[in-house]
Structures are given as C-alpha cells and as structure tokens.
C-alpha cells in the first residue's frame, strides 16, 4: 500500500482531447461489436464456440490475442528490464514448439471428439472425476487471471493519468462483461482480432523510436552493458550454465524442461482459454493451421514487449537530472525509486508519444488488458456452464437455458474477477503471481491430457488421481518453499542460488512428474479401458480424418516446418 500511496502522487501525464477521442472511439467500437453480433448468437454452439465458423486466420490471431493480456504487455516488459533477454524464452521456447505441437498433433483429437472444452475432453477420456477437478481448478484460475488484467489496467490508468483505481477497474470490467455477455465467444474473438491489430498500432512505435534513439541493436547492447555493468542482459542462452551466472537465477534445465516442456506445453495445449479459440475453427485444416499462424505472430511479439524493457535499461533517464532511472520491485517503491518494473512500458510510452500517439498507446494497453479479461471470462463461462453447472447441477436443461446461464455466468465471473483484482494489489510482482498459478494448475493438467491422448493404457482412475496428486503436490511445494527458507529452495529448485522464477519452473516440472508417475502407477493397477471406447480420443485408437489439404502450401505441417526453422534461427542469432 505504501507503493500505491506514493504512486498516487506521481501522475506521469495528462490526456489531451485527441487522446480521449481515440480512447472513446475504441470503447464505442468494442461495444458496437457486442450488440452487432448478439443477433447471430442464439444457440449454445454460437455462444460458447462462435458457431465453429471461424477461419484459420481469425482463430489464429484470436488464439494469440487472448493470451496478450497484462502478463504479456506490462509483466514481460518489466521482466525484460529485470532479467534482460532471458524473458524472451517465455515467447520462443516457452510458446512456439508447444503451439505447433497443439496444431499438428493434439488439435485433431480435440476437434474430432467434438468436445466443447478441455475438461470436456477429460470427461470423455477419464470420466467425471477428472473433469470436475480440472473444471474447478480452471474456473478458479481464470477468475484470478482476469483480476490480474483488471488490476494491471487500473495501475496504468492511475500511474499514467492519475485515474482512480476503482474507476478504471469498473470501466474495463463492465465493458468486457457487456460485449461477452451479448455475443459470447463470437464477440470476444472479433474483439480480440481487433485488439491484436491495435496493440501493434499503439505499441510498435516504442521499439522503433527507441532503437532509433539508441543507435541500433549493437549500440543498444553496448549501452546496456555500460549502464548495468554486465553483458548478461542481451543473451538468450550463454548465461544459463549455472544459477549464479544470470539475473534470473535459473539453469538451462529449468528453461528447457520446466518452461519449454511442462509450463509451455501445459499452457498452450491444455489451457482452455487459448484452446477454446482454436475449437471455433470452421474445419479440421483451419483448426490445425490456427496455432501455426498464432505461433508465427507470437515470435514477433517480443519486439513490442521485450525490446522496450531492454531499451529502458539503456535510455530511460530522468528528464530533470538526466540520470538513468532505476526501476524496482513493486514492494520496494519509495521516494528515491518511485517506479516499479511493471511500469516500464507506460514510462517508455510517455517518453516517445505525444498527444494522439499517447492516446493510441494507452488504447493499445487497454486493448491488451481487455482481451486478457475477455479471454478469461468467456472461457470461465463455458467451463462453468458445460463442465460444472451442466455436468453436476442441471444435466437436462434446454439449449436456451444454457445460453442464458452462459450470459449470467459471464456477469458473475466478472464480478468475482473484480474481487480478485483487489487481491492482486498485495502481490510483490505480477509475474511471480501468475507463474505460481500456472505451476499449480497447468503443469499437472498437461501430464493428464498428454497421457490420455497418447497412451491407450491410461485408465479413468489413473487420470483422476494423477491430476489430483499433481495439483496438490504443486501447492504443497509452493507452501514448502515459501515458508521453508533456503534449504527448501535448494531441494525444490536444485540450488540455493535459484530465484523465485527458477523455483516456479522446477516446481512445475516436479508436479508434472508426480502427476505422470501417479497416473501411470494407478493405471497399471486398474482395469484397462476397452479400445473401442477410445476411438476418436487416443492416438493409436483413432483414424485421423483427412484435413483436405492438397497442395504443399495448404498443408499445416509445411508451415509448421517454416515456423520452427525461423524459431531455431532466432535462438542462434541471439544465443
């Protein structure tokens, strides 16, 4: 709260009338889209899966945009300032292979099983118990994540413009609630595509002008090395040989296995928030292409998120004293250090953008937060309606009743998110908070889904107990390291030099491993599922239908090969 009190007195800038016009126009269009598509959102298929009529491009852009919330914008710009280029791992190794795996390997199973959700797939494969555990943990996570987005938006508005934090939270929440309630996933997807374009339109000027001011990439690296006293901040891999050699306190095994394998694959292939967008595709080929298109755009996002964080290390100076500004953690903000890592993007925005462009940049940030909120709340309403209310409370209601429940749960989910937004204010760092949530819920879920999809011998009891054991052990490890000191940290994260982010990665890996071991053990002790019941759900028991691609450039695997080649190329360039 001390930080908040100080921030209240350090408003950075004011909006000119032209900025307000740009911001208001955005809200008008967003709400118009909600009212416009309401007429075509009548059935539950329309409301929860956008009628399954989206093209690969729309589903792909929405897939990326739903993820492009506060975590991506403010959180990772701040992390880039704090940890340097290591933050890029969360965009490249922490996303690209998993997105391609989703498109090429997993999407056919999700798509041809005609499931409405990831918990719905688990119900088909492992029964109601696994669905219940995953639905409850997912609903809980989406509400918390939606709160992160609200708080981030409110923080930007307060720090940059001096707006009241509650006013900002409610404006964003009410707007998103209206357009998602009216048009469901269809409305959310259309807005997400629009938001993706606006985020680029509003944020791309920061790295362009920043690199101009720094004198190019090579001079930027040299300036960072001079200001920070280390060249570690501009390398992806060279500093990962030991926990002590990099600002994140992480080892390459944590990045490759914890992030690249467990967290990344868990998030991009089993988090229903993103998978829901791909399920809206109009045919199997579009469903396979959407994550490939998403991966191509995801590789470019560090330009507007990571580069501004790095630029701040080199060029962000106090306009009066001309001294480099040192940003600190949210809980270390004081009179001498008035700005936190999370504020690096607004600070860079104000540095380069005058009237008009400032409004566009603020609109980009608002668009990012709203896409994050909409993604979470639309996924929440789907999982609540199909996998909790429809599965456990009212199984035989009419389609119209479920649509109505979807609309009401959107509003209730948003109100619950507002509550969590106030909780987030007490977290030391948005990134730590979010990564902890991922390791609780996403890592074990990935273990259950991947075994269920690729291993015929996995049984219902194995899936349920594996998921439960993974989730409970992850929370237990978090409590152990939070209260157990350095000794506990060394046991979980393999080094006393590990920092919180590294600990999150290893905790995710251990909880995934526990989930897999328990699932395999229990499965081997229980009766196998007859193969006939696994058709359409499991590799080896399913005939994958032809996706209709004839020429090379129509084949998702061809484009996936191009994307993965660029991915390797980028990792080598910035090694």
């Amino acid at each position, binding site marked *: 709260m001390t930080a908040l009190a100080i921030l209240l007195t350090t408003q950075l800038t004011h909006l000119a009338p032209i900025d307000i016009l*740009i911001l208001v126009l955005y809200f008008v269009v967003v709400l118009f889209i909600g009212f*416009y598509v309401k007429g075509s959102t009548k059935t539950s298929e329309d409301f929860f899966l956008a009628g399954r009529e989206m093209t690969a491009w729309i589903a792909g852009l929405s897939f990326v945009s739903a993820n492009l919330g506060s975590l991506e914008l403010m959180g990772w710009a701040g992390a880039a300032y704090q940890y340097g280029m290591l933050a890029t791992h969360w965009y490249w190794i922490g996303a690209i292979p998993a997105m391609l795996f989703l498109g090429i390997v997993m999407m056919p199973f999700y798509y041809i099983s005609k499931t409405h959700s990831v918990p719905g797939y688990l119900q088909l494969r492992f029964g109601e118990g696994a669905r219940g555990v995953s639905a409850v943990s997912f609903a809980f996570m989406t509400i918390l994540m939606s709160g992160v987005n609200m708080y981030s938006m409110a923080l930007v508005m307060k720090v940059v413009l001096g707006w009241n934090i509650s006013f900002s939270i409610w404006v964003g929440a009410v707007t998103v609630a209206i357009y998602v309630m009216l048009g469901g996933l269809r409305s959310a997807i259309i807005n997400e595509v629009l938001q993706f374009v*606006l985020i680029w339109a509003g944020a791309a*000027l920061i790295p362009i002008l920043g690199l101009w001011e720094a004198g190019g990439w090579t001079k930027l690296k040299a300036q960072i090395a001079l200001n920070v006293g280390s060249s570690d901040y501009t390398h992806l891999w060279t500093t990962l040989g030991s926990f002590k050699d990099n600002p994140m306190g992480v080892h390459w095994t944590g990045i490759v296995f914890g992030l690249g394998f467990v967290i990344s694959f868990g998030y991009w292939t089993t988090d229903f928030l993103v998978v829901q967008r791909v399920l809206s595709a109009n045919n199997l080929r579009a469903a396979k292409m959407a994550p490939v298109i998403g991966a191509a755009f995801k590789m470019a996002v560090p330009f507007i998120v990571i580069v501004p964080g790095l630029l701040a290390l080199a060029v962000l100076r106090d306009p009066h004293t001309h001294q480099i500004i040192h940003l600190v953690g949210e809980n270390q903000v004081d009179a001498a250090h008035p700005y936190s890592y999370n504020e690096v993007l607004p600070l860079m925005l104000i540095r380069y953008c*005058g009237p*008009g462009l400032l409004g*566009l940049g603020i609109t980009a940030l608002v668009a990012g937060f709203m896409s994050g909120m909409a993604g979470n709340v639309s996924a929440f309403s789907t999982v609540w309606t199909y996998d909790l209310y429809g599965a456990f409370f009212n199984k035989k209601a009419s389609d119209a009743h479920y649509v109505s429940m979807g609309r009401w749960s959107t509003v209730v989910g948003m109100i619950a998110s507002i509550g969590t937004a106030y909780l987030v204010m007490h977290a030391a760092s948005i990134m730590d908070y979010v990564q902890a949530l991922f390791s609780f819920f996403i890592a074990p879920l990935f273990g259950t889904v991947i075994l269920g999809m690729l291993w015929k011998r996995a049984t219902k009891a194995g899936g349920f107990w594996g998921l439960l054991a993974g989730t409970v052990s992850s929370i237990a490890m978090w409590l152990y390291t939070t209260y157990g000191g350095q000794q506990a940290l060394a046991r979980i994260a393999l080094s006393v030099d590990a920092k919180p982010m590294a600990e999150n990665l290893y905790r995710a890996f251990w909880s995934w491993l526990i989930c897999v071991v328990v699932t395999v053990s229990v499965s081997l002790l229980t009766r196998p599922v007859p193969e006939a019941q696994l058709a359409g759900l499991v590799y080896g028991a399913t005939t994958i239908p032809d996706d209709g691609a004839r020429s090379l450039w129509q084949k998702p695997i061809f484009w996936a090969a191009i994307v993965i080649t660029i991915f390797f190329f980028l990792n080598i360039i910035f090694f």
Partner: protein
Amino acid sequence: MAEGTGRGESLSIWFFVGGLTLLYGIILLPYGAYEWFSGHESSTVLSNLHPTFWWGLLLTLFGGFYSIRFRPGKG
C-alpha cells in the same frame, strides 16, 4: 457470410479492423501535420522526427486498404 461475424451478417471482421485504424489515421494525420508545420511539436524524445504525422499516414493507408477491400456488400 461475412468472415468472422456471423451467419447472415454483412460486416466482416476485417472491415472493423480497417475501419477503426482508418479513423485513427484520419485523426492522427492532420494533427501530426498541424504539429509539424505550425511548430507545435510535443516535448517528447525524437519529436523532431514527426512520428504522429508518419504513423497517422501509415494507419490511414492500412485502414483505407482494409476498409475498401472488405467493405460491406463486396461479396
């Protein structure tokens, strides 16, 4: 069917994208020109490069192309 909206609706998602960016371009371009030619540039870093004008021009071209390409009734 309009791509990305709904059955029987006439506005494409890409028309929304083009329309909003065109509106922003139409707002920023003249404002940037006014700043440039009247010497009322803001005090931001690199304002001497006239980013408002050039970015406004880019958004106008991008938005104009998408608005025309995906205009209602085009098919």
